[in-house]
């Protein structure tokens, strides 16, 4: 399978990228990792008239922790997170996620920001970004704006980035003390999109009660979904099996998956709950809280 013809432009800078986007508008697509876009083009499902390649913008390939925020640049690839000592030690939620996206070769090209912008309903990073309360920094002709992830993910394959903007980075708040997370995914085999997925980020207070919780599920609606009821339930409570089960049930209730080869609605709803429970248990386990299964 071969893509339809297109015009190719390699951007030399962020400004040049914005210039090209301005010039070609809706006819142009940004080419970063290309791991979703190129297969779609090979099937001629996507046939952009213009590709703006940002792979030369090495200045966007950073993973940078400063001012209480981990910033992941638009060209940081999944594999960079997977192998980063910083991510491995301080951001287990992100580390988990980076190891479960697509397959290990695809991860050497695929980017975190690109995945967020693609916003596939079964994608991984949107789920983790919701649980981690991430923000996306977007630049356009009129300057830079920062969008909370909840406002960024609009609908399937649709985000708050407009035609003339470039998503520059995603920012994850640095976890405060006594915080851990976990990402859980059911896939039929390596490389598959999620049958169901869930992310949890939990902060405990000094007494062992939950002082902050981020819970989200994937493949369970038009895009990644925050399980606000579970977050509310967890907040201020001491973890128990029953509490975790209730958080899972909140996910089961809110999940609105589509049936496909991966499973029925019934199965996927239950898996959303199971994975929320497992993600919470795993996050707590990382905080030394056990005996919850």
């Amino acid at each position, binding site marked *: *399978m*071969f893509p*339809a013809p297109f015009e190719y432009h390699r951007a030399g800078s962020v400004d040049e990228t914005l210039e090209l986007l301005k010039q070609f508008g809706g006819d142009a697509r940004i080419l970063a990792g290309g791991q979703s876009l190129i297969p779609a083009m090979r099937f*001629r499902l996507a046939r952009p008239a213009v590709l703006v390649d940002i792979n030369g913008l090495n200045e966007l390939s950073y993973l940078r922790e400063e001012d209480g925020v981990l910033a992941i640049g638009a060209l940081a690839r999944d594999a960079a997170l997977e192998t980063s000592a910083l991510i491995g030690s301080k951001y287990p939620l992100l580390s988990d996620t980076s190891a479960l996206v697509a*397959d290990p070769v695809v991860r050497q090209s695929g980017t975190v920001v690109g995945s967020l912008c693609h916003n596939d309903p079964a994608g991984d990073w949107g789920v983790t970004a919701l649980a981690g309360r991430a923000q996306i920094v977007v630049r356009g002709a009129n300057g830079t704006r920062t969008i909370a992830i909840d406002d960024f993910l609009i609908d399937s394959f649709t985000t708050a980035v407009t035609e003339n903007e470039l998503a520059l980075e995603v920012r994850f708040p640095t976890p405060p003390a006594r915080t851990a997370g976990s990402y859980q995914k*059911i896939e*039929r*085999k*390596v*490389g*598959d*999109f999620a*049958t169901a997925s869930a992310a949890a980020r939990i902060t405990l207070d000094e007494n062992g009660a939950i002082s902050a919780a981020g819970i989200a599920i994937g493949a369970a609606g038009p895009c990644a979904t925050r399980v606000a009821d579970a977050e509310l339930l967890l907040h201020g409570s001491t973890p128990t099996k029953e509490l975790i089960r209730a958080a899972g049930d909140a996910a089961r209730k809110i999940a609105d998956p589509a049936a496909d*080869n991966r*499973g*029925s609605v019934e*199965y996927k709803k*239950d*898996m959303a709950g*199971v994975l929320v429970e497992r993600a919470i248990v795993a996050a707590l386990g990382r905080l030394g809280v056990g005996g919850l299964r």
Partner: protein
Amino acid sequence: MSTTIEPEAEKRSMGQRMKRKEDPRFIQGRGRYLDDIVLPKMLHLAIVHSPYPHARIVKIDKTAALASPGVVAVLTGEDLAAHGLAWIPTFHGYDKQMVLAVGKALYQYQEVAGVIATSREAALDGVELVDVEYEPLDPVVSPFDARKDEILIRDDREAKTNHIYHWEVGKRAETDAAMAASEVTIKQRVYFQRCHPAPLEPCGSIADMNGATGRLTLYLTSQAPHAHRTVVSLVTGIPEDKIHVISPDIGGGFGNKVPVYAGYVVSAAASVVLGVPVKWVETRTENLTTTGFARDYHMDVEIGARKDGKVTALKVTTVADHGAFDAAADPTKYPAGLFGIVTGSYDFPVAFTELDAYFTNKTPGGIAYRCSFRVTEASFAIERGMEMLARKLDVDPAELRLKNFVSKEQFPYPSPLGFVYDSGDYHQTLRKALDTIGYDDLRKEQTEKRARGELMGIGISTFTEAVGAGPSKHFDIMGIKMFDSAEIRVHPTGSAILRAGTKSQGQGHETTWAQIAAEELGLDPQNIMVEEGDTDTAPYGLGTYASRSTPVAGAAIAMASRKIREKAKKIAAHLLEASEDDLEWVDYKFRVKGLPDNAVTMQEIAFAAYTNPAPNTEPGLEATYYYDPPNLTFPNGAYLAVVDVDPETGAVKVRRFVAIDDCGTVINPMVVEGQIHGGLTEGFAIAFMQEIRYDESGNNLNTNFTEYLVPTSLETPHWETGNTITPSPHHPIGAKGVGESPNVGSPAAFVNAVMDALAPLGVTHIDMPLTREKIWRACKPTAGATA
């Protein structure tokens, strides 16, 4: 065995873990697969497919496509009809199939038109612009609906029915009577799902009609190049000497590359019409949606037994879904292949099996996917049945098998469905598998786990295959007997070239064929070049599939070598100035009896054959042998799987898998192990993930590798292998064939293990693939009520 003398170990070729001779080119990226071949002026073919499973073709408008840059021609079924190529016979000749749809499209993705252009991209650009107007018709998706004959799929046929054929073997009345009289019976419908071999290299062809010589060269991804040459000649009327089929390196076949596909024919027609080479290489979607699928058997399995566990009767009734054409790849006299092996390794006093096949609006096929013609379906049926019988009798499934095995004293064993099993020691093989895995300890562990509510299962499969088709009395394809052949020429300096009618697709023939000849001739296997796949040079053979290469061509190689040795003996007598009667073949040399130092090597003999030939003998040292096997061979094995099931998600972890195989004499243990690893992996895939499914509207739901699931290194279990050896008494070197055993035997082991794990929940059967959701459903507390 051919010789009772034990040769010196270091000179021995047979049984050695010899590194493969074909590997240096593959590891350096210098293999030559079909798509690597580029010919001058070559054009590219891409195909237009029907999006509808059943539709009348109202109109095909080529105008826009022909105007697209680079497009040279567009061919439709009607264009082919003008050349008499609209229809071609199916594999065994009982039916015919459309090359490009004429009148009606009969399955989704059926080939409707071909676009020939100067590049692959331009051909695809043209495909987008071929405007086909369809009038959709209601599809028939299930053979059980087809049976009603409410919608006629094939109005081109004389018989106005979707029923293709009825086939049966065994004693119906006696079986029914024995079943009725049985103290215990089980009955279960078992569906072996439609799946696809999906070799990593898709199918393809390059047709090159030379207008000056009138000779058509066809590069094909072919497992059976000679058979394809004959078919092309019969279909086109081109004399067979004017057709040259070359099957280059093949990136896996597994039965997928046995049939003739539309792309081959269209590329050939296009080359004839346009006078330049035309290449066609499938996309993965085309591979999965249009080329031969496998299985799709709905089998009702019934077993009768006495209370003490001795089996009394077997009956299996099957409904087969053949898709839109009867293109199943089976020998002519065996429409349901070797399904009669369904009595398996057990001594049934009486048995009966029958099968009805139907057309549906699905892709045609029914090829032998890593399988000897329906042996996989049969083995799955009997091994699932025996497991259910053990459950019903509340006896250990290993004990039940040991009680009912054909014993080694019974060989050659005539089975109730007409085979004569050559050799085996089923008891020894199963006992070895049980010992290897530590069966008793595992059962103890399982008891403890069950007490804690954990789901652990142990599955057994003790299969017998029938492979190596086959004896000419019974086996032919469109009349061509299923012999195979070898030609060996020993060069003056003692190296040789060996050609065979088979075609390796990864099996390692370049190594193992050389090992057989080297062992028989006392030559260095490194200096025996093996060549296959070129119909201009190789002797006629039926090709590689159905585990037939070693049983048939392997025998031909041994026999050709022995013919050479006979002649060599004459030359040796001349060289040693002795009588032939005074010579003996010892330690890879001819020597004068009683005078061990008075000896000549084959290398010396070869040199003499060209420089100092014996009086009254032809110069040279070569032989050709066409081997017609006296019987099939019957590889067998005992497989054990241990699984843990997570009831919360339905996930299954295959913790251990032990495979003990008896494939008779082993030529190269390393190659045999490799074959077993690969076959087990495919069996694992079939048990847990591989399936071609259609929705109720006839849409294929598994059209590429994102939906047709091939396991990766991470899902694939670690395999433990071992063997027992009972040489085939009728094969010149005692070998039986092995490539398919693991794929035939393992699916039942996996399913039996999962069912064993779910036994405490009262679950007796779940159809493959065992997806997480199916297992999750079975584990739900309410499963009993909703199932």
